[in-house]
């Protein structure tokens, strides 16, 4: 289906990433957000609070991130598309409810405009150090999706993608922005509503008597009903069966938890979006994401000017990690260079996936700023 034109500000805009993210959410059909103020993410919901009352929706500022991250899930079960927005300390507080969304298969979006950590860290300055937390932050095993925009345009585009993936796979989707992308202002083109694909809610077509909340078919994703429709269903964070009833057994746990992971893994090749350039005959492939990919671009150009064969691989989806493609490239290239604004997170995935077939050189940065292109260039030259 197409986006509802009422929420779509079709045209050419000059927006920062936070505001573009808000427009992406409205375009995707989000009409409910619950938030708690935190720098550098708050502008997303500030704009939402101003815009959504004219579109028949609600913004509520909750008393903390625990409340924000569960209120949106209540809204989803009431029928809405909903999201919340936060940064590091708030993201830590939301972890329990990311787990609840994963367990109850509540389609929703968590935006994290990353700042320096740990703890209060650097409230106004960038980092990319929550990447592993996005994948593993809540307790237990589950599958999630995480996307990393590198421009305000992508903040718009990938917010829509995040909602679409959330609905398609019934998972919490993390939009992993960073402070620079959130606060940089660039051209953002919003297409006409009829050119924007929206994945609709997977609402059951069964009558209440035949409906089982967690019955699945081939793609392992169950169909939803909303409260108030007469289904009288039960939802719990406890391990449950197809009826949604708690079952405390080894087989029930095995069946449910494996499905929660496999429904994402089996579709990983479709979810794992990336951008690549001149990787086929590259000696060195630079793997980067978010704002770092734009600094890496400069380093790649400098290296090419020196005659080096350097490829670019940009992660658009961080989770599930594009394992197949990195494994293919590992067979052809000598080395991967992985700059990121942390002390080495996604580089571990590159290492694991390369499986020793290619060297992997991290270019770490503790956050608070971005890399100097020269530092990435040096790693490229060392690797080549």
């Amino acid at each position, binding site marked *: *289906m197409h986006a509802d034109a009422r929420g779509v500000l079709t045209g050419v805009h000059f927006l920062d990433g936070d505001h573009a993210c808000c427009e992406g959410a409205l375009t995707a*059909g989000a*009409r*409910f957000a*619950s938030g708690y103020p935190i720098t550098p993410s708050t502008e997303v919901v500030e704009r939402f609070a101003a815009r959504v*009352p*004219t*579109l*028949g*929706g*609600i913004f*509520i500022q*909750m*008393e*903390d991130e*625990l*409340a*924000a991250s*569960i*209120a*949106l*899930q*209540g*809204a*989803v*079960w*009431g*029928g*809405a*598309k*909903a999201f919340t927005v936060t940064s590091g300390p708030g993201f830590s507080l939301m972890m*329990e*409810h990311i787990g*609840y969304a994963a367990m109850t298969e509540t389609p929703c979006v968590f935006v994290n405009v990353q700042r320096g950590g740990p703890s209060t860290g650097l409230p106004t300055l960038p980092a990319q150090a929550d990447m592993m937390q996005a994948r593993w932050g809540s307790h237990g095993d589950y599958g999630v999706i995480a996307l990393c925009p590198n421009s305000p345009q992508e903040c718009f585009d990938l917010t829509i993608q995040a909602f679409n993936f959330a609905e398609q796979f019934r998972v919490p989707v993390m939009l992993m922005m960073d402070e620079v992308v959130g606060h940089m202002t660039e051209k953002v083109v919003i297409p006409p509503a009829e050119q924007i694909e929206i994945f*609709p*809610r997977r609402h059951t077509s069964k009558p209440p008597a035949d409906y089982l909340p967690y019955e699945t078919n081939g793609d392992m994703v169950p169909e939803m009903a*909303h*409260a*108030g*429709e*007469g*289904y*009288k*269903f*039960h*939802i*719990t*964070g*406890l391990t449950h069966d197809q009826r949604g*009833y*708690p079952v405390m057994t080894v087989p029930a746990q095995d069946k449910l938890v494996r499905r929660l992971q496999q429904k994402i893994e089996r579709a990983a090749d479709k979810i794992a979006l990336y951008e690549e350039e001149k990787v086929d005959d590259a000696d060195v492939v630079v793997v980067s994401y978010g704002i770092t990919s734009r600094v890496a671009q400069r380093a790649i150009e400098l290296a090419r000017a020196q005659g080096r064969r350097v490829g670019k691989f940009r992660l658009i989806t961080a989770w599930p990690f594009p394992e197949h493609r990195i494994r293919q490239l590992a067979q052809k290239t000598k080395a991967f260079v992985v700059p990121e604004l942390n002390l080495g997170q996604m580089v571990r995935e590159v290492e694991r996936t390369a499986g020793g077939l290619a060297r992997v050189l991290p270019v770490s940065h503790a956050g608070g700023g971005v890399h100097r292109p020269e530092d990435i260039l040096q790693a490229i030259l060392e690797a080549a």
Partner: protein
Amino acid sequence: MISEVRNPVEPFLRMDRMPHIWCPGCGIGTTVNCFTRALIESKVDLDHVTIVSGIGCTGRVAGYVKLDSFHTTHGRAIPFATGLKLANPKLNVIVYSGDGDLSAIGGNHLIHAARRNIDLKIVCVNNLIYAMTGGQTAPTTPNDAVTSTAPYGSYEPAFNLPHLVEAAGAVYVARWTTYHVRQLARSMQEAFAKKGFSFIEVLSPCPTLYQRRNKLGDGLETMKYYKEKSKVRNGAPTSEVGLTMQGEIIVGKFVDRDRPDYRELMRHRLAETLGERYVECEELVCS
């Protein structure tokens, strides 16, 4: 001919989940009986009644009642219910949980939902301890009571829940015990019909963990205590209804007042400021 006689509450329960987990003498089942009676008497459309629980013994209520029902995370039933109610105002949303869940880990949400006057009906079953985890001290545990984490007796001052929620803004506040089944069912019925944040505290025995450890006898013994030491004082100032160990229990309807609920406040403000640009939300159902 022997004719089968069915319990009238059965249609309201998920009979395929019986037997329940509650101990003999526990009062939670009694409160569920009152709840179903209140539903029958209220003649509400059950398709539009939704129940949300947190974690704990009372948190299991959502799993046994045949309604749209959500067993959420510890302490977060109220914010979940807030999102649910805002997304679909047609729902009659009941939050059914325990004293530890609602007033300790969920205490912040309790006071803020009362402050906002979100249209939720809270049933707080108070057994004075954390029962599911083995009888630890709760914010409601009275002084001197022995718990598994206060083996020499509790010395923390306890919350007076009616006083707390009245101060925070609740429009309807009542307290009963599981001895007062008719009064409790009537209060629930009144709360269903009341717009805004309603709070009903129900004192309930936990013979396994509270009464046993404090040598207070079984469930029946507790019923005798409730009967003998309860005093109905409708309209009592909530500052005077604090509980003490085995002391007098002031019960009744303490607060019944009107103030605009969150949705009404939102609608009024936005309509006034935005004029024709304001698009009122009825149900936020996405396609």
